[in-house]
């Protein structure tokens, strides 16, 4: 706690923390739509394509002027999106190939410009390489206002056009047939993603920023089946990743903020992929195990009832060996214990034999009959 208080007493840490949290929230909100529209890699291409724009902005302004750098980044990002659209429309190349080409060409141009500018010397140009992986300490309080502004505009527009955005994300063809301006709405979503990238460049850098678009959305999707909840959750996960990443990197000298933020978001994804109820891997493995066990128990009941019918004795004592023969496999002991707990079978002795025997209880007969009538029925007394 004292460490936290100490960290927060620093003006720089507070600025970085606020900036990272805001960026995470904006990227998380807009990233939800990008992920659902299967456009998350478009964000990656936009981000990489922003690098030449950063250098151009630097060249034109003749120094490290944030306004012109961001304008440049937005310009080349938009240009890249346009080129990608033209490539997929005019050639037989698919979207992934077009993305790959545009991303690497624009990034290569950016790196060439960057190294050239640095070769020319000048103290200011040295800082340009921080746009590759981000440099949180470079953030100024005035930058926070810009981030907040972008975030507020994005939030207002998403709320105002919520149902239209939802419809376009789910079924663009239907939206078009209903007369909605789908192209405008899609362009709006892409422009907002580009804006989020541009304001995040300083903090996280062009290489990693796509993770902030994808990771919170991917994590949030695991926990909910409602679009609204997903978007809110994604923004919260993004903000939490940003804040915790900023704090962690502030504790130790030489931990770059951007990559730490991305790692925090990745932890959220990993945890969600594993643990989320319904969709998480562990949850699904447990559910599959439960289902297997239950089916095993039903088959035992059915086999016991078969034996009882064959011997015309409702309380026929079944022995494990006979059940193995009837089922074609040796049933697990735990299944008998579970059936006993549920009151569907009871152990009986069958002298002079000493091996364990079981008989069906009346509710066991009932359950076996229900399973026989409909194998998909739900048991009345689940284990």
């Amino acid at each position: 706690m004292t460490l936290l208080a100490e960290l927060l007493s620093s003006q720089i840490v507070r600025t970085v923390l606020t900036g990272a949290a805001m960026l995470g929230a904006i990227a998380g909100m807009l990233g939800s739509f990008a992920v659902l529209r299967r456009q998350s890699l478009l964000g990656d291409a936009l981000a990489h394509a922003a690098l030449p724009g950063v250098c151009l902005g630097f060249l034109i302004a003749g120094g490290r002027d944030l306004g012109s750098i961001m304008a440049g980044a937005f310009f080349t990002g938009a240009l890249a999106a346009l080129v990608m659209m033209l490539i997929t429309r005019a050639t037989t190349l698919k979207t992934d190939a077009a993305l790959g080409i545009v991303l690497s060409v624009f990034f290569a141009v950016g790196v060439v410009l960057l190294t050239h500018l640095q070769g020319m010397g000048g103290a200011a140009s040295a800082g340009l390489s921080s746009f590759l992986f981000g440099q949180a300490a470079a953030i100024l309080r005035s930058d926070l206002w810009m981030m907040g502004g972008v975030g507020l505009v994005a939030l207002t527009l998403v709320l105002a056009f919520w149902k239209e955005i939802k419809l376009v994300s789910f079924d663009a063809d239907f939206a078009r047939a209903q007369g909605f301006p789908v192209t405008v709405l899609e362009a709006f979503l892409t422009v907002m993603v580009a804006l989020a990238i541009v304001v995040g460049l300083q903090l996280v850098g062009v290489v990693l920023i796509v993770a902030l678009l994808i990771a919170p959305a991917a994590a949030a999707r695991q926990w909910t089946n409602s679009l609204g909840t997903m978007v809110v959750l994604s923004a919260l996960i993004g903000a939490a990743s940003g804040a915790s990443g900023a704090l962690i990197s502030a504790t130790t000298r030489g931990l770059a903020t951007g990559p730490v933020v991305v790692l925090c978001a990745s932890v959220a994804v990993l945890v969600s992929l594993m643990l989320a109820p319904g969709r998480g891997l562990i949850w699904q493995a447990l559910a599959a195990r439960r289902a297997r066990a239950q089916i095993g128990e039903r088959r035992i009941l059915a086999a016991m009832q078969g034996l009882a019918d064959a011997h015309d004795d409702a309380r026929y004592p079944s022995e494990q060996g006979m059940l193995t023969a009837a089922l074609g496999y040796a049933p697990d002991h735990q299944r008998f214990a579970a059936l006993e707990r549920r009151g569907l079978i009871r152990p009986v002795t069958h002298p002079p034999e000493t091996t364990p025997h079981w008989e069906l209880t009346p509710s066991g007969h009932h359950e076996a009959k229900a399973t026989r009538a409909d194998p998909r029925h739900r048991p009345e007394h689940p284990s």
Partner: protein
Amino acid sequence: MRDDTLHEPDQALHVEDLTVSYGETPALWDIDLDIPPGVMCAIVGPNGAGKSTLIKAALGLVRPIAGHVRFLGRPVNAMRGKIGYVPQRHSVDWDFPTCVRDVVEMGLYRALGWFRRPGRDARARAIAALAEVGMQDYADRQISQLSGGQQQRVFLARALVQDAPILILDEPLAGVDAATEAVIISLLKRLRDDGRTVIVVHHDLTTVQSYFDWLVMLNVRIIAQGPVAQVYTPENLRAAYGQHLAMIAVSSGASE
């Protein structure tokens, strides 16, 4: 472009000189088509004949090279609210985070207008539309849990909720079981009997005669169009499908 004058207002769908091409190969070639109001019309043809392209071009989802389209005499942009569209169910991601009722309410978004959210009235109409397709118990179900036939019925409900005089359905019977097929067909017939026009892209020749009363046979060009009894002939089937398949279809249909 102002278009106050009606062009062919007596036809539910009027298509003239329509040509559509993807790249160099024409998908539709010089289509002239008229579908009168109040019929239940099948559009049939072999794979790649341009059936889906035809309705997408009619709806303005695909840009034609030439030609024009009118619904009840008006261009499609003036008729958006009066046309219910059921796309192929594989055209969307059914893992999208939303529930059945939400999808059906999407059919009301246009009527609601900008900035207004669906409320209690929209909810009631969505439930009523779901009841028509026998899915009222699934209103709150997550859409990823639906079977193929249920997905198709939800899509149909989304078009029904619009209460549109013209319905256009793209392969609504593809991959659904016999029970769902019966539900969908009896519903579509009832809509036709109410005086609506139902246009269906269809793939199963053996059911054309029992389900539909109007038929368009397509293979890049129009092969034939008109009442089923006049159009469903061996010559036309041969022209559309080639020798072999036509014989099967005619022999199974002849028992009617």
